[in-house]
């Protein structure tokens, strides 16, 4: 009723937070895109998306400016969060690399760094369009689950990521079939 005061053609105002693409708020427990789901998951990504809020997982909230965040909390926290090195492995590469997640501001930034590290292209594309690219970047989180990189807000990702792996799409199919619990075992069978 009140909406008529707007003086415009109101057809169907869509209320609530936007659906469609990358969600901003994710309830980790409910909508964790565990890797085993991904290879079969083509169509339902947007429609099933429930945007529920998790405490303290919202980017840039509460609005404490980054300077204050870096400088004010107890030294222990500062030291713990100042460097966030994780190992990065790439299928087909003979060596492991390390990347400091705290040095990057977001996924695009990380993609550029990974490209430089492994001198390969397509990591950026892989982050944007997981279904179609040659390489699939995945990460092992605090719970030992392998997740697709790019699904959760950046802040949440850097806090839970323990290591990264750039996997070939062909390998991914087989990997995805493993039940959740045995992922840890499989991660050691990295390609030569």
């Amino acid at each position, binding site marked *: 009723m009140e909406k008529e005061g707007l003086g415009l053609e109101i057809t169907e105002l869509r209320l609530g*937070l936007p659906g469609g*693409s*990358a969600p901003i708020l994710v309830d980790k427990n409910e909508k964790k895109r565990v890797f085993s789901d991904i290879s079969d998951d083509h169509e339902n990504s947007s429609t099933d998306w429930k945007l529920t809020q998790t405490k303290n997982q919202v980017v840039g909230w*509460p*609005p*404490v400016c980054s*300077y204050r965040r870096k*400088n004010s909390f107890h030294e222990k926290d500062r030291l713990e969060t100042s460097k966030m090195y994780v190992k990065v492995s790439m299928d087909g590469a003979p060596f492991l690399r390390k990347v400091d997640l705290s040095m990057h501001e977001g996924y*695009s930034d990380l993609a550029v760094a990974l490209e430089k590290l492994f001198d390969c292209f397509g990591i950026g594309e892989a982050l944007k369009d997981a279904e179609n690219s040659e390489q699939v970047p995945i990460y092992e989180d605090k719970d030992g689950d392998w997740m697709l990189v790019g699904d959760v807000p950046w802040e949440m990702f850097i806090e839970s990521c323990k290591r990264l792996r750039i996997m070939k799409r062909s390998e991914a199919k087989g990997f995805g079939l493993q039940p959740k619990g045995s992922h840890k075992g499989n991660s050691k069978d990295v390609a030569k």
Partner: protein
Amino acid sequence: MKMMMGSSFPEEVLEHVFSFIERDKDRNAISTVCQSWYEIERWSRRRVFVGNCYAVSPLILIKRFPDVRCLELKGKPHFADFNLVPEGWGAYVSPWIAAASTAYPWLEEIRLKRMVISDDSLELISKSFKNFKVLVLSSCEGFSTEGLAAIAANCRNLRELDLRESEVEDLNQSSGHWLSHFPDNYTSLVSLNIACLNSEVSFTALERLVGRCPNLRTLRLNRAVPLDRLAILLRRAPQLVELGTGEASDLRPDVFSNLSGAFSGCKELKSLSGFWDVAPGYLPVVYPICPRLTSLNLSYAATIQSSDLIKLVSQCHNLQKLWVLDYIEDLGLEALAASCKDLRELRVFPSEPFGAEPNVLLTEQGLVSVSEGCPKLHSVLYFCRQMSNDALRTIARNRPNMTRFRLCIIEPRTPDYLNHQSLDVGFGAIVEHCKDLRRLSLSGLLTDRVFEYIGTYGKKLEMLSVAFAGDSDLGLHHVLSGCENLRKLEIRDCPFGDKALLANAAKLETMRSLWMSSCSVSFGACKLLGQKMPRLNVEVIDERGPPGSRPESCPVEKLYIYRTISGQRFDMPGFVWTKDENSALGLS
């Protein structure tokens, strides 16, 4: 009819008269009187403030004002402070410095906020402006101690170097030694703020510098300067008016007595800050100066708890500005209200913003106490975990002189804890009673109704920050159509879409900028707005790839709209899209 003014009144006299008119608004007004006044005014304008570095180009500025001495520029939108603006978005100062280096050889002051400045630019500044006096870099980045070394070495007339809250890269080679680049015969330093530097500075260089600059009034040290060194510095500069300490975690009796003696010699000290990791046992050294203090920033003092804070503030009877952590608790704020009757500004920051549960006894009551006890309080920033409409109504009635009210209830969409309703009426009371309110930040559970109140009563409101609030486009419409003086509007995570934005498109040209992120504005609406409003830059900031690859009805991640007279900018990164298809760089 020919104007009499131009021919009979000497220009020099007009220029002299104009020299008493300082405010930009006034100078803008007199420049519209007639052509000759416009000319005289533009040649004599010395101070220029550019609130959005992309609203105008250096060329246009120089063309209009050929002899500027003080330049102030602001870059990134405010929400960049909370990591909402991706790295590489823009706000590069180098084209401005390059242009100024040839056009304004007599430039004396440069003040930048949220901009990216390189070492090369710093070096260019140091070599281009012979009379350079003031450099203030507030929340800036992109430079290192190398750039600072150039400033130190070449700016013979430097008075002020203030790096407040900037991010400075410390290059190992010159770590701490950039200070030694100030020549031995350099004595004109008045203000030095290096609090944000993470690395050590050379103590000897610092001591010698402080010792040879008799006009030094402000010295804000960084963490790495220990208290025993501080004592030495204070004895060299007892004339200091503003001091920022370093850290001091070990309580040592010899250091304590030395410091006490040093502080007692500082008869002019009015402002204190720093106190990182300070052992509370050191606080008594500042008791003798408390009665003179007008400004106290303890917001980085994570080691000082409520009882020590109370002891301290109870002695600061002349305090006008207090920034503190929520360790002060309601009890401490009651003590503040009782002791500090001259308080004008209060900021209470959260000690554990990401904790799920409250860790301190700080509620709405603390703010209510201060609003009752401090008649001059007009500027508030307050983080807490509970609020009620009653409390907000009380604060509004107590303090109709409020000009800046920023409340952050930590959990989004928190209702009134007493009756579980929205906080619409509480904030409504704030805008209704505080008729001079210029800045407002909302939080808690809020419906479209709060925006109706804001649109109705917020006639002097210039800046509004909104998060997790509202139900529909009507909310945004109320604000855009009602707030006549609105200049900056920043919104995140609200269900505002195309309708209100498009219906109020003309309003956007009267504002500096509008930021919307995680809302429901479609790419189609952004394109339309950009096409219809040539004097606006409509920037879609989206890291998911080209918006063209998604349906036009798809909401954009982030949107930044600002008025400009210099058209599209040329330094947009790949994740920024505007109406011009070709303006996105890098990605196809």
